[in-house]
């Protein structure tokens, strides 16, 4: 029990970030019109591609003789990039169509 409390206080800044981010996340999209639900989902999908940073860190500190770690890390970076790049490009293509036409 004490371990849980002490880990709570060592991570207290992170916990602040988490709680405030939850409120920001909810607040920011609460007024979105139904028209934009799909692009918004797609844009959010691209943003969680931020997980790629974790993949870069893992890969960056993998021992160069550990083939399994290198392969897994390589795969993780490829997949993360797919999420980021694919996500943003698809969203942009969708939004391109909402351009004002005259």
């Amino acid at each position, binding site marked *: 029990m004490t371990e849980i409390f002490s880990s709570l206080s060592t991570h207290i800044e992170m916990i602040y970030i988490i709680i405030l981010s939850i409120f920001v996340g909810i607040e920011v999209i609460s007024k979105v019109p139904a028209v934009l639900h799909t692009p918004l989902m797609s844009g*959010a999908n691209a943003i969680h591609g931020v997980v790629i940073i974790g993949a870069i860190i893992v890969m960056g500190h993998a021992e160069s003789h550990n083939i399994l770690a290198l392969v897994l890390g390589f795969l993780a970076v490829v997949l993360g990039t797919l999420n980021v790049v694919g996500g943003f490009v698809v969203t*942009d293509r969708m*939004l391109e169509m909402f351009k004002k036409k005259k």
Partner: protein
Amino acid sequence: MEHIILDVCYLVASVLFVIGLKKLSHPDSARRGNLMAAFGMSAAIIATIFFHKNDAGEAIGNLGWIIGAIAVGGVIGTLTAKKVKMTDMPQMVSLFNGMGGACAALISLEEFGHFSASLEHSLGTGLSIMAGLIIGSVSFSGSMIAFAKLQGIMEKSPRLPLGNIINSLVILATLGSGVYLAIAPEMAAPWMIYGLFAVSLLYGILFVVPIGGADMPVVISLLNSFTGMAAAFGGFLYHNQVMLTGGILVGAAGTLLTIMMCRAMNRSLTSVLFSAFTVTGGASGTAGAQGTAKEMSVQDAAVLMSYSNSLVIVPGYGLAVAQAQHAIHKMAMMLEEKGVTVRYAVHPVAGRMPGHMNVLLAEANVPYEQLKDMEEINPDFPSTDVVLVVGANDVVNPAARHDKSSPIYGMPILDADKAKTVIVMKRGMNPGYAGIENELFFYPNNYMLFGDAKKSIEKLIEAIGAL
């Protein structure tokens, strides 16, 4: 100095994510919002590669591997995203979401090796690794099943008799072993973490397989927020603020979006996820009693529409499948030249994703002002001459208003049946995606125009042009 640059980049990226999401929720600024978020992401990635140091003060190594991997992922990602047809967007989002989930799971797999080898085990670290692994894997395998369903590779949604119990047991086993590995990693055999990986993947499959294709948007949105949470656990693990804010933002926004989608269908999230969308005897019984549907020829439909004052087009997934968005716009323009007021009535859940129809019609250059929301157009139906339903079904089923035995009872619908004449374009008399009969087809003011949506519209264009 270097860690200051890194911190500033992360801060800027986090702020850009928030502003980007905010701008994404308005049609005029959405595209800029997406670009801002993308810029923030690039800054965070580049700063990580060059300035990140771990606790021991080591910089990022294996640079060749990393840049190679980014190049491979970037090229494949751009090409697939550029090539995909507008109609296939929903499954594309699902696919990219799955990639993110898999990425999170792989990170956890690697970190567990370091974690179990180290002498000091922090419970927080262990739980973050396990949460990232489990959520990431579920998101990955679930997204792949959702992709398969939307792509038409997997058509059935079998629900085992004890499905919910089996699923509960699998998830309990998954969570239990996750907690065990987090608390006592030194006791674990190396295969155990891979076993947990496999069980989590299995759960993702069991979780999504029984859910019908019509509910996939809700599932994708939910899995999207799952991946967000998996990314956030990664941020917790590395004390990485940008992963934390980005992940939590998406986790929270995705959950809200999921709930908004369920609300549009007037169903609760639990009923989407855990109960079969069964056809009750009552729904099929009423349909049988109503006799046969009347058919209308292309010629008659063309004349009727050309000489009407107002036409409302109700697009559905059939329009997307037939790629008929350009044809329907061409037809609408011809009718407008004849003095017909043309509008489109877009149901919140028409198509396979909310907003799916808007994206498709926008692609065909349909003016934004002609697209009407359900609330906006419903009061106008009684004064509308002709409603043309193109590949939509459940969203115009009047049973949702009055038939308590119908599975879609209570879902808000477009009151197309109140118009003077309704023409339904459909390939055949098969029930729609929800698997229920539509009593509208048997109404006295309703006519069927059978055939593939695109071919029928092309024939209509010909007929209207000949008038």
